[in-house]
């Protein structure tokens, strides 16, 4: 699996211009959200967590669709599957690579959020942890559905359509936890949301890994 | 909540009608689609 992961990371490093473009897209989305609300500093700050995660979610549709693009170009997926490296390793390699990419985008959007919505926090480490857990929640089913939709037409519409209802719990938990971190958490509720995120990640990282083999079977 | 909700029959009728109509329309659609298949 490590070699699969290494290959993925190498591919991503080579296409880092793409990552930059997605980052700009995410930042632009955050900007648009502020125009939707208007110059209402209190409202912007209150909903900043929601905007951050919506921005990340929209960006994920771009990165996840892209992640199987290389394989589709060269029909390399069939070749990969012939190797002893099983489908499961391919899945986890891709999912981890997508996870890292999403986490990078998420963390990079934090300064944008701080500037646009006046939504800073001292609990940086906790915020980073939430972003890591939330991106993991997006990456696991996203990689599975990315593999599916990359093989059919209308892939751009189908991937978000399949993914968005599924990740509602992860989105809810990430937004709530982030919101509590930014706005204050007198009763320590953020912890229960983080536990929900961990449970979601555990369930979907195992379930999707299990099912991936059937999805790419020819 | 204090007090009683008076009236509201419109809503009740709406709910039952939507349910009834949807079920009937779906049943009809099943027959239509099955006939369409058999005529092939």
């Amino acid at each position, binding site marked *: 699996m490590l070699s699969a992961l290494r290959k993925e990371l190498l591919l991503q490093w080579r296409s880092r211009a793409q990552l930059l473009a997605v980052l700009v897209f995410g930042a632009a989305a955050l900007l648009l959200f502020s125009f939707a609300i208007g110059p209402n500093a209190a409202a912007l700050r209150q909903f900043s967590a929601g905007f951050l995660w919506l921005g990340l979610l929209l960006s994920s549709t771009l990165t996840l669709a892209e992640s199987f693009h290389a394989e589709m170009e060269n029909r390399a997926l069939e070749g990969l599957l012939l190797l002893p490296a099983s489908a499961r390793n391919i899945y986890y390699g891709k999912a981890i690579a997508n996870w890292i990419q999403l986490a990078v985008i998420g963390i990079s959007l934090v300064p944008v959020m701080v500037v646009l919505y006046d939504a800073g926090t001292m609990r940086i480490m906790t915020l980073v942890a939430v972003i890591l857990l939330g991106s993991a929640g997006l990456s696991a*089913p996203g990689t*599975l*559905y990315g593999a*599916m939709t990359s*093989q*059919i*037409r*209308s892939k751009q519409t*189908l991937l978000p*359509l*399949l993914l*968005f*209802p*599924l990740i*509602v*719990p992860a989105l*809810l*938990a990430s937004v*709530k936890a982030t919101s509590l971190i930014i706005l204050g958490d007198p009763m320590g*509720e953020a912890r*229960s*949301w983080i536990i*929900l995120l961990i*449970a*979601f990640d555990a*369930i*979907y990282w195992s*379930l*999707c890994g299990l*099912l991936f083999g*059937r*999805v790419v*079977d020819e | *909540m204090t*007090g*009683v*909700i*008076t*009236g*509201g*029959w419109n*809503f*009740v009728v*709406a*709910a*039952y009608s*939507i*349910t*009834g109509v*949807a*079920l009937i329309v*779906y*049943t009809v659609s*099943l*027959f239509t*689609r*099955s006939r369409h*298949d*058999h005529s*092939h």
Partner: protein
Amino acid sequence: MSKVPYILLVLGAVCLVAGSAAGLFYAPKEQYMGDVQRIMYVHVPTAWNWMLVVIYALICAIAFLFTSNYKWDARLEASLEVATLFAILLCCQGSIWAKPTWGVWWDWDPRLTSVAVLLFAFLGIVALRNFVDDPPRRAIWSSVATIIASVDLPIVYYSVKWWNSLHQQQSSPSTVSSQFHFPLRANAFGMLFLMIAFIMLRSRIAAARLENEIAPPLEAA
């Protein structure tokens, strides 16, 4: 061809008419909710049966992955469609109940919100089926997607419940006058018979189409 679905359709219709008449005209007015609560006599049975169809869809998905027998794919196609129908009905009934009761069309009730989320998930799977022409791939992918969506349902429910509990305290919509169970039971059985008939008839349609697409013979649905 089996006559069972047609018998079930008639039985179901009879039960629903009886149950609804009882619920509308004979059941006593609820103490606080007034007549609006009569919606529950059709809402609760729809909810029970929706749950059953979703479980059945999950069973079909797992069965197909294990047996690769296309009768399960035909049944899955049917259950996805019937579950979508019932989910739309639930959202309509729930909204219509919420407006006079809470003054809003949507009140983020955990149960109704979970139905809405799963409705979108199933619509996505139906869309997926429409875009994949290759029967084996279509069957495998919709089975996988159905399993993932069904596993998500309890998670969605609990997360919305916790999310909602921080804001609103309200009674759940399924409090029903405890003296009058007949309309509830009659409608529940009525919907159940209709639901089974729908799935049987819809599976036949799906199986017929599969027969045109694949060479090997199918077992009867």
